[in-house]
């Protein structure tokens, strides 16, 4: 797909949306996608290491790696581990610019910052991972989780695919077990403080790794908004027929949209994040009616449930496969000897 969209392409897309047709096909059924339909999601988990995920959402492809290391905690939070999310977009991937006359670098930095902030709010701020569980010795040693999100191909909707990939990786990730050796036990006459030594059991054959404590599973949904009428009509009247809401917009739809809404929910019917920050599109953005927004949130519960169950079943199936392939059954206490 070329970076710049011609006026004919934009008009063609808008006209197709007016006729209830999306241009991108759902490869499952062959027909055009519905307005609230996701592209097919393919999740691959690594067989050789924990916390590595490749996720494909249509043609959008992202990769997540989670690494862990032991570090010092922040001084104001001595009982909590550290979790950081890094989102990188390689230089060869050209993001669709909403305004081609704008400075390209500023737009891309803005976009990357938006993705980083959205994922940070969805996962870290909402306490999806129990950070207190990552504490080894309070004030001295904690686990630090480093989540690297790499965009391999861009065809729209990075926030949803990034969030799905990170959540899948966190559910799959396991960290080495740690034993704390208290100094005072061996040297009772020591006058030094209680600082303990730790032993990291990094051989999985000797001691199994421990998975993370996941408190809930946040799922991001990004809605693209199109304003079919004029801007004055959108601001002054409440004509719902003049607005189109798309779920999971691809790159072409994202470059033509007038606004977007990022919504993060979990299966417990809790809203974690809701961002309507204006579109900045060529038409200058769409304003959302309050009641329509609430209806949209309620209608999205089914999609949230579907995606949550997809993530859970993928991780569960993968763990079962790994269990069978590595012959862990022989290690069970009730196994035939």
């Amino acid at each position: 797909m070329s970076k710049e969209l011609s006026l004919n392409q934009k008009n063609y897309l808008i006209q197709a949306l007016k006729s209830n047709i999306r241009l991108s096909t759902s490869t499952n059924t062959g027909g055009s996608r519905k307005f609230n339909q996701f592209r097919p999601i393919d999740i691959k988990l690594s067989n050789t290491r924990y916390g590595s995920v490749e996720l494909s959402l249509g043609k959008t492809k992202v990769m997540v790696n989670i690494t862990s290391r032991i570090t010092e905690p922040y001084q104001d939070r001595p009982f909590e581990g550290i979790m950081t999310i890094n989102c990188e977009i390689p230089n060869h991937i050209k993001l669709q610019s909403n305004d081609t006359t704008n400075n390209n670098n500023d737009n891309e930095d803005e976009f990357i910052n938006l993705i980083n902030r959205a994922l940070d709010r969805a996962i870290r701020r909402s306490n999806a991972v129990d950070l207190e569980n990552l504490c080894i010795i309070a004030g001295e040693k904690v686990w630090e989780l480093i989540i690297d999100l790499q965009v391999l191909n861009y065809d729209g909707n990075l926030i949803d695919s990034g969030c799905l990939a990170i959540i899948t990786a966190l559910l799959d990730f396991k960290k080495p077990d740690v034993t704390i050796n208290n100094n005072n036990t061996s040297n009772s006459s020591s006058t030094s403080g209680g600082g303990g030594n730790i032993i990291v059991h990094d051989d999985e054959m000797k001691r199994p790794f421990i998975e993370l404590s996941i408190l809930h599973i946040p799922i991001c949904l990004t809605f693209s908004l199109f304003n079919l009428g004029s801007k004055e009509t959108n601001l002054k009247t409440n004509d719902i027929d003049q607005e189109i809401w798309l779920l999971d917009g691809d790159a072409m739809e994202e470059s033509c949209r007038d606004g977007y809404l990022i919504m993060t929910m979990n299966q417990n019917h809790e809203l974690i994040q809701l961002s309507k920050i204006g579109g900045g599109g060529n038409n200058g953005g769409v304003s959302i009616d309050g009641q329509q927004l609430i209806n949209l949130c309620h209608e999205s519960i089914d999609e949230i449930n579907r995606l949550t169950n997809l993530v859970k079943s993928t991780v569960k199936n993968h763990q079962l496969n790994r269990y069978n392939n590595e012959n862990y059954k022989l290690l069970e206490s009730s196994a035939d000897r």
Partner: protein
Amino acid sequence: MELYSPEGLRIDGRRWNELRRFECRINTHPNSSDGSSYVEQGNTKVMCTVQGPIEPALRSQQHSERANIEVNLNIASFSTFERKKRSRNERRLVELKTTLEKTFEESVMINLYPRTNIVINVQVLCQDGGMLAAVINSITLALIDAGISMYDYVSGVSCGLYDQTPLLDVNNLEEHDMSCLTVGVIGKSEKLALMLLEDKMPLDRLESVLSIGIAGSHKIRELMDQEVRKHGIIRASKMQ
């Protein structure tokens, strides 16, 4: 501490649907800017100046069919109880800057001012909760003072959810202990130009919190409109 007593009083004596004291002034810096305003929303104090439409300093900021809106948001290090030096490139500030730029690109008639730049400088002097809402109100008043054409007012308010009760116009103590929602409402309608929810909120409660936010924004719009009309009457009388 008790944020909301069984008698229905908050920690500062307000009830659940009462705004803090809202005081606003326009044309506060007539020499250094084309439009200026000062907004106090409770103890949150925001100062805003607008220069523009002016010629852009950089060629990349120039658009042949519309104006470019640039927002510079400065949060003073003394604005919180503990002094905190904030760099301009902090991610949160960059996001707020982008949010404000996109919100007002939506509300300002930027197609009337092609090849120009509108520079909005916001200085937050004191923070006591609801900072983004106060900044939105301040920018709206400054743009009106500058004579820049807008479709309608954008009024902002933040509201929180305390257990089952929505609370309007939260302050700093309330912001830390409950989930908060910031809305920017366009004029007298129920259209949302901006909506930002960063904490967990049950979906069942969203409707009540949103409705109280929209009602509070309408009240703030009234208060802003009163000040603008009063200032207009004063200037009209000076013309005679």
